[in-house]
């Protein structure tokens, strides 16, 4: 796949590098190093600041390396751990359930939609695709969810809308399309039903697709704050992590309510470091998992770029 295989090392060395080649290469290395710094530094700043004392931040601003290192912010968060543990449990449940259900529904439909002998495949594809072209807008959606489906303050209001999207379904369809049709045909000849062809023959050969789309779903659920902000009011006991972070950042009130039990004087609450520590706790798992899963995203984007 890489160009290295095309040009063996020995052949390449025979061609002398001219100055412009060398300039481009040098420039790229410099740029690469710069981007790396730009993409990583902000995260280090948040982590560093979360371990800094509130006074030092008030005096010197946010830092990479704490001048007066302390675990005070984390201490406060975990002194009454109910809220943060609840958020974690909720986020993990939503992510697990949403990804599992979404993935099964998307892959079943994706399989049917690409079967060339299925007469309704174009109708279903258009039905799904049309929803990305036209929508009733936010207000009718909100009113439907709240007044008709009665989902205010229900975690279902967060779980359901993120289950699938036209884009993910089309992506899945394109992935499955690359599996030879002969597999389906051989199953048919053996007298297998459509569902068992899908479950026994197709699923084993679509693991990369499942990994990619499962990851898109999981990231969607883990990063979810939008539907929570629409449908979960302050009556709800636990909130998804990113929404909890959103509230801690935006509403000093929320911050006080969440951590009021843990400090004697509310004025002593280390607001800035609490924001940073909450960010670290809420986002840590994603960043830790990231190096292991990012290759599936690249695979997904390359397939997704080609339309089906």
């Amino acid at each position, binding site marked *: 796949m890489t*160009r290295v295989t095309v*040009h063996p090392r020995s052949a390449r060395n025979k*061609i002398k590098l001219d100055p412009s080649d060398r300039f*481009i*290469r040098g420039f*790229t*290395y410099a*740029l690469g190093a710069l981007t*790396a710094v730009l*993409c*990583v530094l*902000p*995260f280090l700043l*948040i982590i560093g*600041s979360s371990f800094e004392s509130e006074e030092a*931040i*008030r005096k010197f*601003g*946010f830092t990479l390396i704490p001048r007066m290192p302390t675990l005070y912010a984390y201490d406060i968060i975990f002194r009454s751990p109910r809220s943060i543990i609840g958020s974690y449990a909720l986020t993990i449940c939503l992510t697990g359930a949403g990804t599992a259900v979404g993935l099964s*529904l998307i892959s*079943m*439909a994706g399989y*049917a*939609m690409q*079967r060339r002998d299925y*007469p309704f495949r174009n109708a*279903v594809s258009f039905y*799904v695709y049309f*929803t990305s*072209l*036209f*929508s*009733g*807008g*936010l207000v*009718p*959606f909100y*009113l*439907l969810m709240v*007044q*008709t489906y009665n989902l205010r303050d229900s975690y279902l209001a967060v779980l359901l809308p993120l289950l*699938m999207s*036209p884009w993910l*379904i089309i992506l899945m369809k394109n992935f499955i399309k690359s599996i030879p049709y002969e597999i389906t045909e051989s199953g048919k000849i053996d007298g297998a039903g459509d569902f068992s062809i899908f479950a026994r023959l197709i699923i084993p050969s679509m693991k990369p697709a499942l990994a990619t789309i499962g990851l898109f779903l999981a990231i969607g659920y883990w990063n979810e*704050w*939008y539907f929570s*902000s629409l449908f979960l009011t302050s009556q709800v006991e636990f909130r998804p992590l*990113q929404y909890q*972070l*959103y509230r801690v*950042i935006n509403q000093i009130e929320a911050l006080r309510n969440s951590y009021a039990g843990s400090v004697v004087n509310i004025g002593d609450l280390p607001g*800035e470091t609490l924001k*940073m520590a909450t960010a670290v706790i809420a*986002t840590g798992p*994603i*960043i830790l998992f990231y190096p292991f899963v990012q290759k599936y995203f*690249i695979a997904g*984007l*390359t397939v997704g770029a080609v*339309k089906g």
Partner: protein
Amino acid sequence: MRLTRRFGQNLWRYRTLTLMCLPVVVFFFMFSYMPMPGAYVAFTKFNYQKGIWGSQYIGWKNFQFLFTSGQLALLLRNTVLYNIAFIVIGNVVQMTVAILMNEVRSAKFRKVTQTIMFLPYFISAVLVALVVYNLLNFDFGFITSLLRQWNLPAPKVYSTPNAWPVLIIIVHLWQSTGYGSVVYFAAIMGIDAEMMEAARVDGANGWQRILHITLPCLKPTFVLLLLFALGGIIRGNFGLFYNLVGLNSMLYRTTDIIETYVYRSMMNNFNFSQSSAVGLFQSVVGFAIVVIVNALVKKIEPDNSLF
């Protein structure tokens, strides 16, 4: 008659496949098609107790207000200008990064850089906003503090509307360059290696190869991505804008896009009618644009048209 019988036969014969599609069909019916008739709320003086269908019909009044007050014009201007900047600058940067990455011989360097560039794409808009706050907050921001230490004037970014177009474009690039360049990189990988080798043997240097081979080969991808992006030109990235700006009304002049206005007027001002009027306007115009763009794609590259 024959057709209906055929339809019935097919329905029975392929019932398993239809059943496999059923959950998806139901899902989009419940969450995408059901809200569509509710767009009627844009023509009413909405009363929460009476619901959409019990509210008083007032015709085009909501739209009239939006047009005459200039509100819609401002939102439209911001949304479209931001998108143009995102599309043009974004694509140029992504393409440049992909081309440069391709010039690097070390696969390891390329992999590590790509991995790191992808990182900002994975995090939520909430955290992105916190990153900006961490850097630029007037009192404790990392950059503002540094400037102060060097006795330079610290900018009051959060009360300077004119700083935001640049800032938002930078944040957008920060988040999207990694994944955008992957698409271009895949396209570069598809370029005939023999063509490159021939140019190399003929003595073409790096610049010349990029200029005369890589760039022309990327043109179809570029045009296609451009056209697809044009289809979404009046749709904005709500999460990014709303988290960065929030309820800081001082910045609305340069940062308010259709999505943020719709969300705010509903969730904070409870002005459902006006909010839905803007939303409906966006849906209808957006739909028209996609249809036009698709016709264009069909003409240029029939294989890639959407429908």
